[in-house]
Structure formats: structure tokens, C-alpha cells
């Protein structure tokens, strides 16, 4: 880092460092940022403009596809009046919130235990949990189908609420193990010396300090649950119990014809809650990172 700091390009004759001026900052910071913004936001832009284009405009390549000439709300109207989209959104929210809470509860306990409690095989169990996460859902859905049948949960949101943690808990546990390991053990030991029980040390010391990690795990779990497709496809049958990813593809793709207007309107609306959640928690997340054990 010190070597990099010494390499400063100075404007000839002035002695000023280019990097400190607007042009320099633009080249170093804003240009890469702009490129990244375009890359990440373009899909949203494309979804948005497509959802406002009329049927005839959707396939008219004689004009630039990057603008909307005659915006229409027909696709949104259709989405809310001709499909069960509001119900799908409600179901998705219920499933995502419930499975996130269940996964966090289990992962916090498992992560803390594996990171803090010294017992034989803890490391192996930790690795085992991570390896479990690597098993693809495309292999797991068949045995899980059998389990769901035995529990009589087909076509019931509980089927998703209970199966999503099978892939959420391993990763969240792995993630939280790292966070718990990063908290100085001495803080909890001090609490234990002062008479706190292990549970109290965990709840009052470790968990508040691991809050950034818990939030990150929550975001991760929520996003994965919100977007999950395969289990929702297999376990849900009726239109009224579907989630957004499944409902949208099943009712807005007809044979080999895609109804892009409604599809993009649904995709845009479906991505809003996750985007809002991320933007809201980014500040929280950063604040959590800066508050730490050293604050004492």
C-alpha cells in the first residue's frame, strides 16, 4: 500500500497530483462505478421499459429498443386483474420470512456452538454442514418429495417453509461460525467470570456483536427463499398457493410464446422487496461492522 501511495502522477509545471483533482477522481472512482452501475442496473432498466411497452412496440426493432414511445400500464393491469399475482406475492413473503426466521434461529445456535464450544468433532461437523450446502437441490428434490408426501404437506406453504431451511441452514451456519470466531473469546469469558451463564453470554454478548453477520445471513436467506423455484414448482399445485417465481412462469408463458410485458412487470415488482431490503440494511450492516468488541 505504501508503495502505491508513493506513485503519484503530477501535472507538469504545477506540481499538483492528478489523482486529487476531479478528472483523476473521475477516472479512478466514478468511471469504474458508472460501468458497474450500468452492468448491475441495466437488467432492471430493461425490465422496467419492457413492462411499459405496448404489444406492438415490444417486437418493433425498427426503432431503438432502449426507450418507450407509447407507455402503457396494460401489463400491470393485466397482472393484477387477470392473474393471482397479489396472492403469489403474499405467499412468497410468508414463506421467505418464516423460513428465514427458522433458519436464523437454527444457524445462530449451530454456529455459536461450533465456534465456541470445545467438543470433539466440531471442526468436522462444521465442514460437514458446509458440504451439505453443496448438494444441489436438483438432487435433493426427489427424496424431499417423498418426505413431503409422508407429512401430507403437498400444496401447503409449510412444505416450502420446512424445506427451504435444508439449504439455508448449512450456509448460514457456516457464515455465522466465521462471525462468532471473529469475536474475542475474552469478552464472553469475562461475562462468564462475572456469573453469566453460557446462554446469557451468547445472547447478551456474542449475538449483539455478531449482528452484522446475522443480518447478512438473514438477507442471504431471505433472498434465496424469495427467488427459490424448484421446490416451489414441485410442491405447490394450485394457483392460489404458488410463489412469484413459479406463478409467473406458469401463467405467463404459454407454450413457446412468452408474454414479455406481463413477465417483465411481474419480475420488476417481484424484485422490489429484495432491493428495498438490501438498500435499507446496507446502512445497518455497515454500522454494525464499525461497532465491535473494541467499543467495550
Amino acid at each position, binding site marked *: 500500500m505504501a508503495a502505491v501511495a508513493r506513485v503519484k502522477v503530477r501535472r507538469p509545471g504545477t506540481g499538483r497530483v492528478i489523482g486529487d483533482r476531479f478528472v483523476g477522481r473521475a477516472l479512478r472512482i466514478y468511471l469504474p462505478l458508472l460501468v458497474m452501475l450500468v452492468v448491475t442496473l441495466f437488467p432492471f432498466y430493461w425490465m422496467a421499459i419492457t413492462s411499459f411497452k405496448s404489444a406492438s412496440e415490444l417486437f418493433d*426493432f425498427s426503432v431503438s429498443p432502449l426507450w418507450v414511445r407509447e407507455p402503457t400500464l396494460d401489463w400491470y393491469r393485466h397482472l393484477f386483474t387477470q392473474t393471482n399475482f397479489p396472492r403469489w406475492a403474499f405467499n412468497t413473503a410468508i414463506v421467505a420470512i418464516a423460513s428465514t426466521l427458522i433458519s436464523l434461529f437454527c444457524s445462530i445456535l449451530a454456529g455459536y456452538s461450533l465456534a465456541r464450544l470445545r467438543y470433539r468433532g466440531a471442526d468436522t461437523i462444521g465442514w460437514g454442514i458446509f458440504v451439505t450446502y453443496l448438494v444441489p437441490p436438483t438432487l435433493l428434490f426427489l427424496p424431499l418429495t417423498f418426505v413431503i408426501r409422508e407429512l401430507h404437506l403437498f400444496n401447503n406453504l409449510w412444505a416450502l417453509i420446512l424445506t427451504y431451511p435444508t439449504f439455508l441452514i448449512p450456509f448460514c451456519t457456516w457464515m455465522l461460525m466465521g462471525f462468532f470466531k471473529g469475536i474475542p473469546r475474552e469478552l464472553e469469558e469475562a461475562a462468564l467470570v462475572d456469573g453469566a451463564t453460557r446462554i446469557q453470554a451468547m445472547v447478551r454478548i456474542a449475538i449483539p456483536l455478531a449482528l452484522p453477520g446475522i443480518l447478512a445471513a438473514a438477507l442471504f436467506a431471505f433472498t434465496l427463499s424469495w427467488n427459490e423455484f424448484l421446490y416451489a414448482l*414441485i410442491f405447490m399445485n394450485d394457483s392460489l398457493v404458488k410463489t412469484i417465481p413459479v406463478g409467473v412462469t406458469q401463467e405467463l408463458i404459454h407454450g413457446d410464446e412468452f408474454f414479455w410485458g406481463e413477465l417483465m412487470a411481474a419480475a420488476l415488482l417481484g424484485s422490489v422487496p429484495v432491493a428495498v431490503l438490501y438498500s435499507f440494511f446496507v446502512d445497518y450492516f455497515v454500522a454494525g461492522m464499525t461497532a465491535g468488541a473494541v467499543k467495550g
Partner: protein
Amino acid sequence: MTQGNRAKSGWSRREFLKTAGVAAATIAFPEIIISCGPQSSSTPTATIPKPRKGASIRLLQWTSFVKPADDEFVRQAQEWGAANGVTVAVEKVTGDQLQPKTAAAVEAGSGPDIIQMEYAWPQLYTDSCLDVSNEVNILIGKLGKPDPVNEAFCKVNGVWRAIPYTIVPNAWTYRTDYFQQAGVTSFPKTWDELTTAAGKLKATGKPISQTDGHAYGDSLTMWNPVLWGFGGKEVNADGKTVAINSKETRDAIRWAQGAVKAGLVVHPEWLDPDNNQAYHADRISGTLNGASIYIREKIEFHHYTDVTNNAPMPSGPKGTFAMNLIFNHAVMKWSPDAETAKAMLLALMEKDSYLKWTTVASGYNVGPFDAFHNDPIFAADPKLKAFEDVVAPGKWPGWPASPSKKTAQSQTQYIVADMFAKALANGGTGDIEAAVGAAETSLKAIFERP
């Protein structure tokens, strides 16, 4: 359970004598068996299934392109349900989603009472599909002979495991204005004429285009008929001897390479919706597809309806072949109300109801029995005639071998399409021997394994 009991007890003397007698008679007098074909089979003794009042039936099927047709199907099913005191639910998923849903139901031994079977699924899921020979024979008595392709898919070892439901025919949809502009007065009748036309059309900037990728409809329906048209085949009729490594296969590939060099544009990245979109966006002048492109132009976009026409498959040196999307209905073994499910399917296949449905489908579907030939919907719009014409030359993946688990496996691995795609890479200059060799290796791994 039945199989288990049989395994325990072995063959009784009576069973052995009966089977041996039938086998001897078959060898000595094959005409006896032939004369006991569908037309004479059990119609007089057929038992008409009775619906159970209070039953609940769930049917899983794909979301067809024509939404009003899906709605009409649901309406008819629910109307029948209301008349018989049966609750009917129709679940619709996309064509791609039908397979995992079916596989999961089979694995769990639980799920919809009726599942729409695509292509050779009755062969794949035989043990989960109930014997519906009685019901098919009732339909044969009423509606005449079934379509040979539906029959080949539905009948497993002589037992009907699914009830023929529909054919989604695939024909060429093309722009008459671009064809005229290029000096091509009618759609090519042979593959060689298609090469010439493709060359002329490319000059207009609106090429004839098709996928050679992994599109479950458009890729299979293109490259299998090309292979057959030149006399090529994956496997012999015995379903065991791989026959892809032949002069005829190389002839088919050489034609395809010539067509691509002349101007046919192939897209390995295209899936089933992509040629539809390219056509609607005025980027291509012709493509092979179901009637969805034409119907959507006609009922929704109205941009190119007047300058769009449809044509049947061109012929090769060995004849005209086509491949269409085939759907049949299987009653699943776990259904607690199988008789009710069968009764409902019979009602939906009644001629009047069925023709009402195909009329709403606007030519996207063709009926699978003789009685549905000359469906008035195809007379109402002469441009749709091509879709009716491709039904007769229709075959199935793996033909001339009968559909089986192995032909289904070869189909889902896109071995034929991949062979053409390899040879058509880099502007139609791929290595033919490497393409045929790779296909042969893959096919041998499927068909010639013990």
C-alpha cells in the same frame, strides 16, 4: 404387489401352458394375432367407467400457447365434474416444468390423478400409469383408429398406458413478401429447393432460420425429419442396433452443411421461443414451428398476417417426414378415484366436446383419432392446412425403433440435434466424421448396453 406375488409363487403349470400355447399359435398363425388388432379388440365387452359422486380429480397438463383453449378445456372438465358431482382441478405448468413435476409425483407415488404425458413418457413411467386399454378401445369404437404416433407412445408392450389426447403439429411459417422479393414463388417442396431458397432469402437480409440447439420442440422437429428424409436413423427397428454411422446420415449432414453455406441460418443458442420472437420482430423470413407464430400474428399483432403463410415439411430423397409434439393422458396408479378419472377423460374425448376445443385452439391442435380428421378449423383458414398436412408423415424420436426408455433417453440428450450442430458449426464447416462418431458413441452407450 402383483409382481411381488408372482415372483414368490413362480409360474404355475396352467400359466406356462397358456403362455406357451399363445406363443406357439403366434408363430404358427401370425394372421390370427393381426386380425385381433384394435378394430376387433374388446369394444363389445368394454366396461364403461363410472364416476364416483364426491370424488376429487386433479389433472396436470402443460400451459398451451392458446390460452382460450386451456380455458375451454378447464370449462369442459369442470362442467363434467358438476354434472357428475366430482370436483375437478386442472393444474397447468409450462412444457419444461411438466417433466420434473411428473418425475417428482412418480418418485413420491403421489400427486395428480391424471398427468399429461409428453412424447415417450408412458414408456418411462410405465409402472405408474394404469392400464387404460379398456378406455382406449371404447374410444376406438367411437372415433376410429388412433394416430400411429400417439399409439406408439401410449402402448407399452401391447398395453395402453395412456389415452391419446392431441398432436401439436409443426410446419414452416414464412413471409410471402420476402419470398417474392427473393424470387421464390412458393415454399420449397424438397430439402434441395430449401437450400436454393435459403440462399436467395439471405440476400434480402431476412434469412430462413432454425435452432440446432437444445429446444425440446423446434430442434427435434427439424433435425430428426432431415435425418429420416435422407434415409438416416439412430437405431434399427430392433431398438438395439445403432445405425447412425451410415452413408445416409452423412448425406443428411452434407445437405445441412450445404444449406447453411448457402444461407440457412442456424442458431445453437435458440430455445423454443426464440424463433417465434425473431419472426414477430421481422428478423427472419421463415422458420419451423407450431402454429403459434401464425396464430399470434393473426389474433394479436396483426403486423404480418397477410404476408404470412405456412407450408408442410419438404421431402428428402427417401420421402417426407415430420415430427410433431405429442401429448397423451395417463391415469396414475396412486389415484384413489381412477375410474372417475378414466370416465372424465372419455367425456373430454367425445367428438363434439373435442372439436369445440380444437376450434378454440385455432388450429394449434389436431385430434389423435380418425374421427378428428378434416377438422373444420383447418378448412376455415386455408393457411392452417399445412399443420394438418404434417400429421400423416409424422414419426417419433428413435424411429423406426418403437418408442422406449432408450429412445426417450436419446431424445432428452439431443444426440441427433447435437450431431447436426457439431457439423454445422463455423458456418457449416464442422467435421462430419467427428460429429457422426460422437453421436454413434453416445447412442451405443444407450442402445447397446446390456
